[in-house]
């Protein structure tokens, strides 16, 4: 019975995957325990400098997610914790967690850093991949969540020798607690999600490339830290041995990947090619001197969305050299500290070259702890020790109720991990849908005091932060100064303004002194604004009647040597905050009801998967298909690479969707009109041959309109019957096996309609398709000669096994260069395929019975839909996600999600994962009874509007429009609150609430008044 299930979920692993799964679940009405092994969440992504293919700063894009996770009332972050056992069954598990002591009281620690400063023990810093040192008392990184220090007992002098305890003596908050012991915690949950990630492969295990011999041979993760502004060299690109700027850097690919000879890592790690492209570009940008970069590779596998363009840019615009080769050895170079790379090039010649530094592009490896975890909880692993999942159910482990996401399931990059995290959340949500909102917490607040029309009565609370602020800034002086400012009726100093007892005090002062505005002068809005806003809300004040002065992070911490100057700056900052506070107004948030129905465009695998999951999560679905039949592109695919039967799966899926009471299917239906905002959309459709009109009201929309196979214009396709596409070949292999038996020689050409000027990106699936069909042909007739003409074979992840298998079966893989495409001619009825084979170093002509073209995937007719939905497209007309890394299934329009090949070319299992992710996003929206809108949003004063359309042009979200009254109108439910329109508006008709001109000008006046 659904009612008996437990509405909570354990997520193991606090990396980006675990964080995303936790946020999705908490938003969807489940209580989440986020169990993290280390002292803070953030995982591997927190160690990265930049992310591909946009070279965004990793920490910049991640830290809002960290904060969101840390603040969420329904996410309990358990750090230093590991799952030991899981008993019970799907819906009702008992999870045993072991939590190590932190030796610092989480409730008391104020993150001042005194313990670190006083701690005498320096140890290698694992966050900096061992390239820098940290103290035994430390914090993993400055943006860590929870922002609490810890003492590493393995390195602490007190634990080693029984003496020291300097941290304890100096901690201003009394937070150090050496009496803490290991705890066993039992959690009752309905589902478990495994998101424990990977460890970088350790090249010291099999030291082919001199990693242990030279400090200038580093792993890619170490290099990531070297590039980072928070890394060992503060972002200066220098090499470890002598801290000199390198002139030449080499990357060696596939270290700990694609290798069955000296390791058991037969899989492709999938990410290393693209991160090497990124690192080689970023290094060039970072370098103070002219830097030469070269990447030694086997195949360049930039198969992700827009990755090929990224690769092209690095090579053609940035001058990164790519050397197809096998590296034999890395030896000492001619100059001190340099390294000599000896390699065999693509034409089989032995060559060598010296470099100042070598980066090993290490693969994604499974940590021992993860393998043990799987064993302890009864989850099966595959032969590479990644979690075994079914092709058509890519996030379900072999134990029901336990799901997996991220690299633990298989090598993948950040967006794929984030997608899978949402997919796992969707599966857990559908399992537990009856228990939604049974264990979540919601905070109740007293009725708000009406302050409109009242004179401002401001209370100022100045924080000592132990000695953090008070050690530099003269806090009593600042407090006295504050008390004399206009409208200030109360000013006081606190040892820790954020402590629990001060929150009680603030509420008392609000009552006693009838305060209607509150100013806190302390650390940073980034970490503490929401806490104080919450406090004043508990005292009946609107949370927007709060203003903060940052006198720690931006003052006492950076002006330690100038106490007088710091005190003066603190006074200025407090004055600005007070002046601003006097002008603040309460803001209300409106509630709009949510229509609990999803509309899905596209009845292929993506659309049907999403429809089923959403219906199982308890919501209605209208599934719209343009064709007469459901099934989409999958109708043409028979087998997966591993041999699973696609048609059987599709048949079952159609059956389930058709007989689901919550799903209504509209076939031969076309979108006619679309309007509304998230939670409240209205769509008109023309349905059936009669084109009758149908209106659907819905809260969420999923675009799953798919893509299509490229129809080749090249290589005699359509002119000679022996020239076919891979899809056409597959059809013959299934239906007319005997025909294929007669073939003796088959040639395949890769990258037809992909990776060229017209369509620069890689279609991702064609290499696997070619390998799959080649193996099938070999199985039909082992004596077949099969030639695959390729530029790079891109069988990423575990698909590499099949590439190896095809080679073992005797399939010939023949390399041709870009711009030296094969020539195909018909000579006396036969097909002649001529090309220059690089490995053989000569021109070759093949006369095959059949020529199979690996035609790529191109976008469907997406332009009209994109315009209607205001969901932008990429330059090759696939739908563009809101953020390539962290919002991979959201579009820029809230409430509209994308999945499947409408987003980019992908495999069926990847499509299913993405469809589940889109369902998760849609359901966390549909699970809410209402949307809260308002707060910091823009508002138009129609009397001042000149209808000049400056706002219409400037808004990055296309929100303002000229309404029927001829003036601009902004829908607050769509407004993101950036304020661009307000600043662009010449007649000042637009106000951005909470950042109004008079509030900003008051701050400036406050600062400059003395002049």
């Amino acid at each position: 019975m659904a009612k008996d299930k437990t509405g909570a979920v354990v997520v193991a692993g606090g990396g980006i995957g675990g964080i995303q799964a936790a946020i999705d679940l908490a938003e969807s009405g489940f209580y989440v325990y986020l169990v993290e092994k280390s002292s803070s969440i953030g995982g591997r992504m927190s160690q990265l400098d930049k992310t591909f293919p946009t070279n965004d700063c990793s920490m910049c894009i991640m830290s809002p997610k960290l904060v969101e996770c840390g603040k969420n009332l329904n996410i309990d972050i358990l750090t230093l914790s590991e799952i030991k056992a899981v008993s019970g069954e799907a819906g009702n598990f008992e999870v045993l967690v072991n939590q190590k002591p932190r030796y610092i009281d989480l409730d008391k620690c104020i993150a001042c850093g005194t313990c670190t400063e006083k701690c005498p023990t320096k140890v290698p810093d694992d966050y900096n991949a061992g390239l820098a040192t940290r103290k035994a008392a430390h914090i993993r990184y400055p943006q860590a969540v929870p922002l609490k220090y810890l003492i590493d007992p393995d390195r602490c002098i007190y634990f080693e020798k029984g003496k020291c305890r300097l941290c304890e003596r100096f901690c201003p908050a009394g937070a150090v607690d050496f009496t803490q012991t290991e705890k066993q915690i039992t959690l009752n949950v309905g589902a478990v999600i495994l998101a424990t990630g990977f460890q970088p492969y350790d090249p010291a295990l099999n030291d082919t490339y001199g990693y242990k011999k030279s400090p200038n041979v580093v792993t890619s993760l170490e290099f990531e830290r070297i590039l980072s502004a928070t890394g060992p060299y503060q972002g200066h690109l220098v090499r470890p041995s002598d801290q000199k700027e390198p002139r030449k850097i080499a990357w060696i690919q596939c270290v700990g990947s694609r290798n069955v000879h000296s390791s058991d890592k037969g899989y492709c790690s999938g990410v290393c090619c693209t991160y090497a492209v990124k690192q080689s570009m970023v290094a060039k940008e970072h370098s103070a001197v002219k830097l030469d970069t070269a990447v030694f590779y086997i195949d360049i596998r930039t198969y992700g969305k827009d990755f090929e363009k990224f690769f092209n840019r690095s090579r053609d615009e940035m001058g990164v050299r790519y050397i197809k080769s096998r590296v034999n050895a890395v030896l000492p170079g001619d100059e001190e500290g340099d390294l000599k790379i000896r390699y065999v090039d693509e034409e089989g010649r032995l060559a060598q070259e010296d470099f100042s530094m070598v980066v090993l592009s290490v693969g994604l490896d499974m940590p021992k702890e993860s393998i043990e975890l799987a064993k302890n909880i009864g989850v099966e692993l595959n032969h590479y020790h990644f979690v075994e999942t079914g092709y058509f159910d890519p996030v379900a482990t072999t134990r029901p109720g336990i799901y997996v996401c991220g690299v633990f399931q298989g090598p993948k990059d950040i967006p794929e991990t984030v997608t899978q995290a949402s997919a796992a959340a969707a599966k857990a949500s559908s399992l537990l849908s009856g228990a939604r909102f049974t264990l979540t917490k919601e905070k109740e607040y007293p009725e708000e005091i009406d302050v409109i029309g009242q004179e401002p009565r401001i209370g100022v609370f100045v924080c000592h932060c132990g000695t953090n602020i008070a050690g530099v800034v003269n806090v009593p002086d600042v407090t006295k100064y504050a008390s004399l400012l206009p409208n200030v009726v109360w000013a006081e100093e606190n040892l820790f303004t954020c402590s629990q007892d001060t929150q009680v005090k603030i509420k008392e002062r609000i009552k006693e002194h009838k305060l209607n505005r509150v100013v806190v002068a302390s650390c940073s809005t980034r970490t503490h604004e929401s806490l104080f806003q919450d406090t004043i809300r508990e005292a009946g004040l609107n949370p927007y009647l709060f203003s903060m002065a940052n006198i720690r992070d931006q003052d006492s911490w950076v002006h330690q040597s100038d106490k007088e100057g710091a005190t003066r700056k603190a006074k200025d900052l407090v004055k600005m905050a007070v002046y601003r506070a006097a002008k603040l107004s309460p803001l209300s948030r409106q509630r709009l009801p949510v229509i609990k129905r999803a509309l899905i465009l596209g009845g292929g695998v993506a659309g049907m998967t999403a429809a089923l999951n959403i219906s199982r999560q308890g919501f209605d679905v209208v599934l719209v298909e343009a064709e007469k039949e459901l099934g989409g592109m999958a109708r043409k695919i028979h087998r997966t690479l591993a041999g699973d039967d696609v048609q059987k799966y599709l048949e079952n899926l159609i059956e389930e969707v058709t007989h689901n009471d919550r799903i209504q299917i509209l076939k031969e239906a076309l979108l006619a009109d679309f309007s509304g905002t998230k939670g409240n959309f209205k769509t008109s459709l023309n349905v059936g041959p009669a084109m009758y009109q149908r209106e659907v009201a819905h809260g969420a929309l999923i675009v799953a309109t798919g893509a299509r196979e490229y129809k080749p214009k090249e290589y005699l396709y359509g002119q000679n019957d022996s020239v076919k596409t891979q899809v056409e070949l597959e059809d013959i292999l299934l239906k007319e096996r005997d025909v294929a038996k007669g073939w003796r020689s088959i040639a395949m050409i890769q990258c037809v309609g992909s990776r060229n000027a017209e369509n620069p990106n890689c279609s991702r699936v064609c290499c696997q398709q070619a390998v799959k069909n080649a193996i099938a042909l070999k199985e039909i007739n082992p004596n077949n000669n099969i030639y695959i003409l390729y530029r790079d074979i891109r069988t990423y992840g575990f698909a590499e096994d099949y590439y190896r298998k095809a080679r073992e079966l005797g399939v010939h893989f023949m390399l041709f260069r870009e711009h030296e495409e094969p020539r195909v001619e018909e000579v006396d009825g036969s097909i002649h395929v001529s090309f220059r084979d690089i490995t053989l170093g000569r021109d070759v002509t093949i006369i095959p019975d059949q020529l199979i073209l690996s035609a790529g995937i191109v976008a469907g007719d997406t332009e009209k839909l994109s315009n209607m939905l205001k969901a932008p497209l990429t330059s090759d007309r696939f739908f563009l996600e809101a953020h390539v890394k962290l919002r991979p299934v959201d579009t820029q329009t809230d409430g509209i999600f994308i999945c499947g090949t409408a987003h980019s070319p992908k495999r069926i299992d990847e499509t299913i994962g993405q469809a589940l992710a889109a369902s998760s996003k849609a359901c966390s929206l549909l699970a809410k009874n209402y949307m809260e809108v308002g707060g910091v949003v823009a508002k138009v004063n129609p009397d001042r509007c000149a209808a000049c359309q400056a706002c219409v042009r400037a808004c990055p979200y296309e929100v303002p429009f000229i309404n029927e009254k001829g003036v601009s109108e902004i829908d607050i439910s769509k407004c993101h609150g950036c304020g661009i329109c307000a600043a662009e508006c010449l007649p000042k008709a637009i106000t951005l609430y909470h950042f109004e001109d008079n509030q900003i000008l008051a701050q400036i006046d406050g600062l400059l008044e003395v002049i």
Partner: protein
Amino acid sequence: MPCTGRVDVIHLMEAFQKGADGVYVVGCLEGECHYSTGNLRAKKRVQYTKEILDMIGIDGGRLEMYNIAASDGPRFSQVAREMDEKIRALGPSPIRTMLQKIHGTDNVAVNVEIT
């Protein structure tokens, strides 16, 4: 401010009018704006305001815009030093000199940071 996209010409001009010797605006790296294009809008407005400043006899070089990654503290402090040095070299703004004549006050140079 939520975004440098909110920075208005009048905010910048207010600072100079009240006697600031220099003002600089710090936004996200170009292409990495949280609101997609806010920092590019700000860049245009800063450029425009510089022109106005030049036109009215206040050196447009007293106003600058910088793009710094949120995690790049060292660059932030470097920019602060750069701007400080530059403004010190330029000396007090003509408006401040005038205001001081009127009010008879004397104060150290102040930079307004808008982030």
